[in-house]
């Protein structure tokens, strides 16, 4: 059995068939996961210097020179690589007194930080499978982003105290600004709440818990709370829609969860896509007390040290991008500035950012061509069991870059 590192579920029941040295069939994976295994050989990155193909060793030397000569380096990405590679990247940042940041700054890092600081209670997917009754998906569409979440871990599986199937033993609540595919599953024993304002809905839950009539969803909110009391163990999966809906102020989320817990157990788990985002957050938190946007020079974290702010403010002269494609995922007004500085990209596949980088170094696909460890969104550590072994992986590249510092 192999582990799919396509998203933060880190499904560890993947089986593959190999024909002529490549994966020909994949069992148990979702569309995304199967695609990663079946397309292992597609769109692979080649070593490049200034956009031209280069010998790998020359490209490594080019990257070493950029990092060595940089006065102000930022290391960014890292959420698709193993803990072992992340540790090396953090070590490199520390030695260079560099900035380090990952996707969690604009993804779900705030939620992970609240969990690590114990501001909100969290649990594991295994506990959810065995115990959870009311399952909230708030601002997330796992049908597309975490495709096996409902079938393997939350709504559909039977486990522990929940042996009677989803029709009786689970209560699904989907909150979103549109009727997503996940919301369409909310039929029997379920509710879909179309959200205009997340704060307003949370205020509704708090009002109902304090004995007042909620201003929105007057019938649904009391029913959901009643079901939560009945179930005794409930979980909220929060996604990017929730993060951006709350606009950075999570006080009402914390208040709602605290008040809900006065009636029955309620846990929160981030519904993030990146397979090892939580791994990076935990490693950096252990070392520095912060989960992201950290400056080893200033020994602190700040919004000013967020990757996009560093680019916008012109504070960095070089960027090392590992396992991420900011030109695809960040507002381009910031990401475009990577073309003006010395950018090094380390990635197994061709990326838009690679097209504007000074140096591109190919690496391996975590979980398929290289082993290591990742931490899922629920905090569970999973050991990867690669199908193939490739000598040049993220760890190898980072060790080579560390040689010159």
């Amino acid at each position, binding site marked *: 059995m192999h582990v799919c590192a396509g998203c933060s579920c880190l499904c560890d029941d993947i089986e593959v068939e190999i024909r002529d040295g490549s994966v020909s069939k994949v069992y148990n994976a979702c*569309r995304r996961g199967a695609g990663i295994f079946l397309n292992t050989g597609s769109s692979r990155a080649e070593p490049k210097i200034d956009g031209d193909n280069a010998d790998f060793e020359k490209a490594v030397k080019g990257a070493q020179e950029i990092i060595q000569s940089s006065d102000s380096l930022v290391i960014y990405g890292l959420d698709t690589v193993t803990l072992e590679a992340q540790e090396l990247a953090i070590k490199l940042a520390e030695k260079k007194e560099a900035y380090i940041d990952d996707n969690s700054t604009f993804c779900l890092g705030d939620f992970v930080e609240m969990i690590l600081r114990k501001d909100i209670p969290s649990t594991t997917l295994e506990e959810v499978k065995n115990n959870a009754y009311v399952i909230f998906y708030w601002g997330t569409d796992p049908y597309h982003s975490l495709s096996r979440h409902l079938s393997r871990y939350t709504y559909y599986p039977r486990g522990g105290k929940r042996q009677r199937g989803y029709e009786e033993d689970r209560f699904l609540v989907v909150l979103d*600004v549109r009727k997503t595919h996940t919301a369409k599953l909310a039929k029997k024993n379920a509710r879909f709440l179309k959200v205009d304002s997340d704060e307003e809905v949370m205020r509704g839950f708090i009002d109902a818990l304090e004995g007042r009539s909620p201003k929105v969803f007057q019938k649904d909110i009391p029913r959901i709370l009643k079901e939560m009391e009945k179930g005794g163990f409930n979980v909220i999966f929060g996604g990017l829609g929730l993060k951006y809906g709350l606009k950075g102020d999570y006080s009402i989320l914390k208040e709602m969860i605290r008040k809900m817990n006065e009636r029955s157990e309620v846990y929160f788990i981030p519904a993030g896509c990146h397979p090892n985002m939580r791994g990076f957050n935990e490693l950096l938190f252990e070392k520095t007390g912060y989960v992201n946007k950290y400056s080893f020079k200033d020994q602190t974290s700040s919004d000013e040290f967020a990757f996009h702010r560093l680019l916008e403010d012109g504070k960095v002269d070089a960027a090392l991008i590992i396992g991420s494609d900011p030109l*695809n995922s960040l507002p*381009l007004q910031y*990401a*475009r500035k990577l073309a003006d500085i010395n950018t090094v990209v380390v990635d197994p596949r061709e*990326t838009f950012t690679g097209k504007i980088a000074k140096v591109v170094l190919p690496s391996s696909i975590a979980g398929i061509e290289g082993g290591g460890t990742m931490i899922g969104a629920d905090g569970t550590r999973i050991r990867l069991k690669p199908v193939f072994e490739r000598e040049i992986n993220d760890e190898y590249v980072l060790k080579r870059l560390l040689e010159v510092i």
Partner: protein
Amino acid sequence: MPLEFSRFLKKVSVEVVVGRWSFQVEAMDRGKFSDEFTEKSAVLYLNEEFGKSNGFREGDIVRLTSGNKSVNLKVLFSDIAPENGAFMPNSIYTSYLTDFSSFKRFRATIEPSNDRITKPEEIMQKVLSMD
């Protein structure tokens, strides 16, 4: 010569919701420079009723404009699109049109276009030539 009614359509203002779309993510692993990636990313999903009532047909090419930035996309109908808005998979297209303040939902206008779909490379060209 066929009448092109779409030429007489006015701009429609909508809110565009950005999210994951597993078919598009799958195409990403086949290659961000592949035709399949463009086909699955350069898409504006509209609710069928909303689309038709505003004169759009499935397969139409439209110009989506947010602020001073525009891209040409193909219209597809889907029941997961907001009732009076649009849905787009997150990709270089949405990264081009959004900022962090409007990262997952942004206001835009849709109007008919006789041009072809914008390719990712064209977006990169536009971005790199910005001041």
